[in-house]
């Protein structure tokens, strides 16, 4: 077995769970904003696509932070 795996087992499991949580909820809530955005565009006669994309981009950023920061603490 890779000695890195046995020395940093907790870190690896933690990164797995934390990364999973971050990406799961980022995607989930992005979908919810998207759903609300579709209704908004439909009711607002096509207005506001840019704002909806910005709002979805902000929650996308949380997902990006989740994986980048966890990559940084990945044991070498």
């Amino acid at each position, binding site marked *: 077995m890779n000695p890195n795996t046995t020395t940093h087992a907790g870190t690896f499991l933690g990164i797995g*769970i*934390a990364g999973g949580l971050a990406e799961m*909820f980022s995607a989930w809530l992005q979908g919810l*904003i998207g759903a609300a955005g579709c209704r908004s565009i439909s009711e*607002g006669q096509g207005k506001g696509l840019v704002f909806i994309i*910005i709002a979805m981009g902000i929650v996308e950023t949380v997902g990006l*932070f989740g994986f980048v920061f966890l990559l940084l603490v990945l044991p070498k």
Partner: protein
Amino acid sequence: MTALTFLGQMGIVLMLGLAAFGSSVGIGMAGQSAAGAWGKAGKAGKQLNFTYIILLGMPISQTLYAMIVMNKLGQVLQNSEIVLANAGLIFGIGLATGLGEMLSAWMQGLIGAAGIRSLSESEGKGFAFLLIAMGIVETVGIFAMVFLLGMVPELPAAA
């Protein structure tokens, strides 16, 4: 490796996942509210309000606060003896930071969602008060970060 070390290592990284969860939920709630308000404005033929973006983007900062504590604890991770001796403390710091940032972001998003509705109904009045209200819950996240950074075990000075 002991179970204690394992627990300490997990605590360090779990906080980021919890904080990202809170940020996502907060932004998601405020984002849905903003979409509704934009739809209402579009239907009425009014110009769409950009200030909603400021309110819905605020809960993102809590993920960064958790990252700061995680990086500080990540340096402690290099010293396995300190991790073993302070495993409970390290796991506790991870859990407390994660919870503090998660709920701070979540509740900030709830205030943001309610604030967007308030702005939409009052035609833009009260933005400063909403920013202050959201700033107060942001402060809780900053307190959690700063006070828990103070609890991080010291590394021995390099010889």
